[in-house]
């Protein structure tokens, strides 16, 4: 009799253990609010180390996803290449087949250039891009287009990955490790010195996702982070009118914002990037 009751209890115990084992990974994705204050806190300065689990992922959390698109492009300011964009698209699926959930992740990370291609006497740590400043270009915020409108928002989950098994100086976008964390994220088109987190409803823009991550190869604050983390946004990207197209390369779909954290010149640069159809 006792034996006959033991099996259900053991099964339940295993199920609970399994649930707890998976809970941290599942909970790490952050679902962005669609109403009210747009910005949520992740790991702002001064950084908490080790970082809290908020929005924090590892590559293992992408094991249910297939990479379906990949590109890299120059980040150009005033005709000067100041960094490289790495852009990826993953879909939920197995093998080589995306499943019918239409769940897509669009992710990006950047690497800021360290080679002084011009005016080495002005700054030997990076390509100088300004006629009035010797500072290296610093990205404080990344913005990208997402599905949804202010009237009809579409759920968006955000996660970030600090990198892999490499170092902060690595050149491989999978292995390299970011030094600085994702600080804030939310559905807004405002960044550093434009909005104070958590912002207000007037700062909301449900057509954009904002990633607040200080990325600079030679930062005046004394802590360099040549690589940004992988900055991921997950949404439902339906088959566009039966065409089989779920994503595309969109013009001005990503924006880099240098907000002037250390009195740099506020500058925004927009470029092509992947977007949900």
């Amino acid at each position, binding site marked *: 009799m006792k034996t006959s009751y033991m099996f259900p209890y053991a099964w339940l115990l295993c199920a609970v253990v399994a649930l707890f084992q998976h809970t941290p990974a599942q909970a790490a994705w952050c679902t962005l609010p669609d109403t009210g204050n747009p910005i949520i806190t992740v790991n702002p300065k001064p950084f908490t180390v080790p970082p809290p689990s908020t929005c924090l992922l590892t590559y293992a959390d992408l094991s249910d996803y297939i990479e379906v698109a990949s590109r890299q492009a120059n980040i*150009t*300011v*005033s*005709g*000067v290449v100041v960094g490289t964009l790495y852009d990826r698209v993953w879909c939920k699926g197995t093998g080589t087949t995306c499943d019918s959930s239409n769940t897509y992740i669009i992710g990006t990370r950047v690497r800021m250039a360290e080679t002084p291609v*011009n*005016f080495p*006497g*002005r700054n030997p740590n990076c390509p*100088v*891009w*300004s*006629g*009035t*400043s*010797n*500072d290296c270009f610093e990205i404080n915020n990344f913005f990208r*287009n997402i599905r949804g409108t202010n009237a009809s928002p579409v759920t968006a989950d955000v996660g970030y990955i600090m990198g892999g098994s490499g170092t902060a100086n690595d050149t491989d976008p999978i292995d390299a490790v970011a030094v600085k964390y994702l600080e804030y994220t939310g559905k807004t088109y405002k960044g550093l*010195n*434009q909005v104070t987190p958590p912002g207000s409803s007037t700062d909301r823009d449900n057509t954009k996702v904002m990633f607040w991550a200080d990325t600079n190869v030679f930062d*005046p604050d004394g802590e360099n982070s040549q690589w940004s983390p992988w900055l991921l946004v997950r949404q439902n990207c339906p088959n566009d009118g039966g065409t089989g197209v779920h994503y595309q390369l969109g*013009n*001005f779909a990503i*924006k880099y914002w240098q*907000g002037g954290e*250390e*009195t740099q*010149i*506020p*500058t*925004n*640069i*927009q*470029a*092509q990037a992947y977007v949900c159809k």
Partner: protein
Amino acid sequence: MNMRGKSPYWRMGLCIGLAFAGTQTALAAGFERLSRTGDEVLTYCNPTDSGLNHACRVTSLPGEPGYLLVAARSAPLIYNDVTIGTLYEKVWRKASRPRLYIFGMRVVMNAEQWDSSGAAFNVNDLFRQTLPNRRVSIAYYQAGATKALRHAGRTVQGLNEFEGYEPERDNTWVDFRVDVNAADPDGVSSAQSPWLLTKTRAPSGFVLNALGLRVLNSDVADVFDSVDFFTAGYQPDGVPPPEDDDDEEEDDE
């Protein structure tokens, strides 16, 4: 007697002399010297596009006689990987005083979409570098532009970049305030700027600086929506590089 006999020639000579002097004065009157000390940085030219206002205006290139064209170039203006216009530059050197130059530039903009707003690029200020310890005079040649030069001054602060009436002085830069837009929302479009002329000494000649010109688009409701970029431009050789912020702070102390 002799005087009378010579009178017609003397009068004719006087008239020719005055006419020549008058012509020289009219041509040279276009150039206005910019201040290089004090709080009054800006020199006003034609802020209202008045046809009656000829301040800073010249009627030909380079605006004064005796100059020889020594360099000319054109280059695309690119922002966000989009070609938004073309820059034209010319450099003239005075034949009789070879250290004296006139640097000229104009931009011709198009209506290509260059950011997510969809608006055409609006040029509010064009900045050029000069030697800070040399005098600078400026002028403009309309050359078919719909809108005139508003004002100029030795500063690198343009529209909506300073409070009050005068920007911060920076003698390494000359600002030309214009309003150039191929599809201006104000209803009056001027796709091309006038020729914007900078007369100054360049004892060591001139060079092409990869970041020597600044283009500013700042007629926006939120100052953080302003955009600017730098592009290559001619300038006198020897313009000092920008100081680091740390250096400026030390100077202030």
